[in-house]
């Protein structure tokens, strides 16, 4: 056990180091990117887009809910709250109203401070010792759920975050999906808070990125995330694989890898919908995404054996493909930032040097060297093709998610197309750096 731990630790660090070194080497030693390399990378990244478009046309109903099973399984609706978290009441009220053919219990795992839950019918508190609710513990959720589920006897567990409000029919829509080796079903998440720009960006992002791509992954039998905010799973299998990994900060991703490793699958159901609260400031958004990326990379390094694993269908392909795409994206983004900043500083240095030596005005020099090149050039052509593809993908994605664009979404959408991917890859690079230097995880 101890050896396995050390092995995992080094494997993890080695992964971060490998990506870090690749980024540095590419940035410093690849000076000119030839058209052939550009086309290879372009092709690599666009393969998924083309694949998605074909799947969307050929398998449009892949993620639709399946018919409810004849034998109704018992279900425990589980959420958690601590520190006298009053807002849980709203969630609990909504959970109680969920449609299901047989009665079910809403379990709230608490630290004993939520006394207001005591007298609500249909709701049971599972009180755990306070040590499970240490606020500084970034794995609080996985510890609490793992421990709390030991008190539950139902066949299925429907897990919902305290700030997530599901639609009434969610359980009905998700239950049919659990069958044979499909042991986890996840729903589609929307955004509750839509006031400021950060929130609006996430509205567009959730509708673009968290619906359609997951349907594509499901169709490829390669869904690799469990969406802890809203998922239904078979408790027996959950227990069998050892529950959540309490050492991973994206336990909902790790659990799916663990399930796939054991021969099971998760699937996405587009019409099982819920809304959740998203970060409302850039700082919170940044912390959340760092957590997602670092957790994701921890999972990748832990399950590196998927590279060679047989009998997982297309998952190995998906695993290799997504990781290479991410790394390629990071190489490009870091090099672009590095080139921009270094060019800026070098230019300022030489402007100043020339100014001191010869006393030329800045405006003269700027005037001579900035060319706007009015003619369309081949690089612009390539960019145009890329944007056309991306736009088409976004349109299909919105359509699939039943998302109606409003005027207030136009600027966030423009930001999404031209800036968001860049920002996410930048955050991904930062998370790699954090990983290399062992920076403490934050929630």
């Amino acid at each position, binding site marked *: 056990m101890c050896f396995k731990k050390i092995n995992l630790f080094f494997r993890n660090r080695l992964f971060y180091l490998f990506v870090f070194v690749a980024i540095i080497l590419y940035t410093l030693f690849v*000076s000119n990117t030839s058209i052939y390399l550009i086309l290879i990378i*372009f092709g690599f990244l666009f393969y998924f887009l*083309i694949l998605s478009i074909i799947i969307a046309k050929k398998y449009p109903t892949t993620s639709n809910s399946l018919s409810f099973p004849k034998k109704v399984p018992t279900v425990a609706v589980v959420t958690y709250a601590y520190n006298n978290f009053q807002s849980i009441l709203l969630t609990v009220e909504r959970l109680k109203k969920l449609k299901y053919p047989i009665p079910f219990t809403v379990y709230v795992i608490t630290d004993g401070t939520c006394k207001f839950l005591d007298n609500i019918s249909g709701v049971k508190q599972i009180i755990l010792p306070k040590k499970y609710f240490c606020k500084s513990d970034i794995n609080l959720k996985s510890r609490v759920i793992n421990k709390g589920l030991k008190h539950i006897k139902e066949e299925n567990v429907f897990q919902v975050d305290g700030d997530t409000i599901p639609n009434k029919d969610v359980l009905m829509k998700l239950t049919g999906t659990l069958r044979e080796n499909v042991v986890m079903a996840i729903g589609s998440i929307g955004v509750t808070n839509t006031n400021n720009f950060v929130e609006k960006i996430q509205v567009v992002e959730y509708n673009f990125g968290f619906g359609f791509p997951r349907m594509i992954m499901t169709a*490829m039998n390669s869904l690799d995330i469990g969406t802890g905010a809203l998922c239904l799973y078979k408790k027996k299998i959950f227990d069998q694989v050892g529950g959540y990994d309490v050492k991973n900060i994206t336990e909902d991703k790790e659990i799916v890898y663990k399930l796939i490793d054991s021969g099971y699958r998760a699937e996405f159901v587009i019409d099982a919908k819920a809304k959740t609260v998203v970060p409302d400031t850039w700082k919170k958004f940044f912390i959340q995404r760092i957590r997602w990326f670092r957790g994701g990379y921890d999972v990748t390094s832990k399950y590196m054996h998927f590279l060679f694993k047989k009998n997982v269908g297309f998952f190995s392909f998906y695993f290799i493909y997504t990781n290479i795409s991410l790394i390629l994206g990071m190489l490009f983004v870091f090099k672009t930032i590095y080139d921009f900043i270094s060019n800026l500083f070098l230019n300022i240095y030489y402007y100043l040097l*020339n100014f001191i030596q*010869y006393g030329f005005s800045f405006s*003269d020099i700027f005037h001579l060297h900035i060319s706007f*090149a009015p*003619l369309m050039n081949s690089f612009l052509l*390539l960019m145009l093709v890329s944007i056309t593809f991306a736009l088409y993908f976004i349109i299909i994605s919105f359509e699939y998610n039943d998302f109606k664009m409003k005027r207030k979404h136009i600027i966030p959408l423009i930001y999404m197309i031209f800036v968001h991917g860049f920002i996410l890859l930048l955050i991904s690079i930062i998370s790699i750096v954090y990983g290399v230097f062992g920076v403490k995880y934050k929630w």
Partner: protein
Amino acid sequence: MVKYVSVNVFLTAFLILLIVLIIIFFGVMGYDNYKKNGYEEDIKLLNQQMVLDDLFMVYIADTNNIQEKCSILEKQYSAEYNLNRQLLDKLRQINENALVPTSNYIKYMYVLTNVKLWMYHKKLNIDCNKDKILILYFYSETINQGKLDKIKDEHINSLFEDTLNSISERCKNINVFVLPYNKDIIILNQIISDYNVANYPAIVVDKNVYYNVSELQNFNCETN
């Protein structure tokens, strides 16, 4: 029942991608090559003009009307000079923007044409007693160098170009011939050694070589 994607879908996507890539590849190459071919055509046109000049020179060599001869040649040369300057701008633009780099052939032809033009102008000055000031500008050419050198060169080149531009605006009797400091091209090597150009960037006016733009600040349009 959920229908999972079959291998055929992956293959179809790969085929479509391949077709898209081929279209893009040939589109990009075709577009850049189309533009480059246009520049090659410009060079060919210039060379045709020069052949015409040579013929003119031979034809009017025996004429006694020196004035007519000089007037014809001056017009011809100044038109070619302007064409060649435009070509330089175009070459710079394609170098900045194109994915497909400019071929050495175009650059080489541009250099040779420019040298030939410079020699014609020199001859015109002597034969027709003209007072045109002919300036050779050797810019530093960054080949296989690091980014630091490239930016340094760009800045120092820009200083020289800036100075030459301001001189050209001030003095209308000036023709500037822009050449790379490249000793691998035999004719350039010859000029570089003839004029003792030891470093780059450098500006050659008559027999004088300037390595520092501040020396040209007070350039006299008449006496140089």
